[in-house]
């Protein structure tokens, strides 16, 4: 679609506005705390998978279940399988 000639210009922030050294406010501090809490689930999941000795897997079914769990830890956008 062609851009209309009566378009409204949106000004840029002043140069020098970027400041990653700004101290984090309470919202960002809370976000980081929430992130940490969320990660604990992954730690628990990772510990569960790492506790399984791959050499103990006796069947293709056992191996596929293990690989499923490991992949799900690595690819977090894929829903996790239920624990057996």
């Amino acid at each position: 679609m062609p851009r209309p000639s009566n378009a409204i210009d949106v000004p840029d922030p002043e140069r020098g506005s970027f400041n990653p050294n700004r101290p984090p406010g309470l919202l960002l501090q809370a976000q980081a705390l929430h992130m940490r809490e969320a990660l604990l689930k992954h730690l628990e999941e990772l510990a569960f998978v790492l506790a399984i000795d791959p050499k103990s897997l006796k069947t293709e079914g056992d191996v596929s279940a293990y690989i499923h769990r490991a992949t799900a830890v690595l690819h977090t956008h894929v829903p996790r399988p239920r624990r057996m």
Partner: protein
Amino acid sequence: MNAGLNNLKHIVVLMMENRSFDHMLGGLSLVREGGKQKYPGINGLTGNESNPDAQGNIVKVQPNAKFQGQLDPDPDHHFPGVDLQIFGVPPGPGRVANMQGFVKDYFQQTNDVRRSHNIMYYFTPDQLPVLSTLATQFAVFNGWFSSIPGPTICNRAFAHYGTSFGQVGMDIFYILDPIPSIYERMIQAGHTAKIYYYDQQSSTMEIVNLLKNQPQLFATYPQFIADCERVALPDYSFIEPCYNDHTGDGGGEILASDQHPDHNVQEGEKFIARIYNAIRTNPALWETTALLIVYDEHGGIYDHVVPPQCEPDGYSAKPADTGTGEAFNFDRLGIRVPAILVSPYIPKGTVVPGPEDPTKGRSFEQASIPATVTNFFLSGDVKRTIREKNANTFLDLLSDQKRPDADIPYFNVKG
């Protein structure tokens, strides 16, 4: 149903951070043309609103707001602070909500009388061409309030769940009751829904429940732009701005676009314009999408409208949690925030009356978001709070008439 509703396929919500209605849009009421108010229906500022400062001086609202560097430290917007802002005095018998405690509260943080006046500053419409244009070209709400007189996390929870499950602060909360998020409701019913956060450095403010347990609901801002281009938006989209200044994956400077003090307000204007343009420039999407731009809460900044009472949602926050020494039963809304509904089916210059109009006025809040999405897309018995069931919805603002394309603004955004 009218044409606007018949054509509607997508609802998009962009939730910004921590600015009050009067701070961002109150100046529209002071614009004059031909000796009269240009936007008479908007319940903004008269210029005479005031608060006492710590020395008892009267501090009027002033058009002195700056894009950055003025609201540092971050104004208090936690429950006890907002309580003082609304009532002007600490909890006690007989007090009345009067919106007289903003300067007092900011003085407690700054310990500087002059700086405490900054909380009364507002932007002029020409400073905010995007928000002001959208507010005057589409529908602006005179009565959209944050759900809780408190901070971000609990208010955003109302947008996702229609309740904060009793939380009034920033603490981690868990879903104790079987109330699914609006995204879960949609997906369970065979619809599509996504939360688009800016990037992984910024991420989401809905972490512990949705990001932790349902990561498939999330995508990023570049994906939103791509989904707009392909006309592949989900039925319901919730967009989160960038919450911090950081270096991008390619090494570039990425500014926070959430407008949370003390982040640059102009960067937020650019972000709003980009979201709008992404929908506006695709005719198939433009005709079928309603975009709500709303702020989660007021961020401690002055607004003159007393928050109304509301339907309790069945929860109660204990005195130890509110920090005021009193329990809170979720029976009063938080402070008013900017909210604008955009669609080609909204008549130009629509103003949705709020509490200032005792006959036609309606109050909206963040629970109005899942209430609207649920009522439009879903049928049957959806498990949700009484608060959400009774929340006002906003799609009745869509009309039968599509506005001509030449009548619709477009924004030139660099970068």
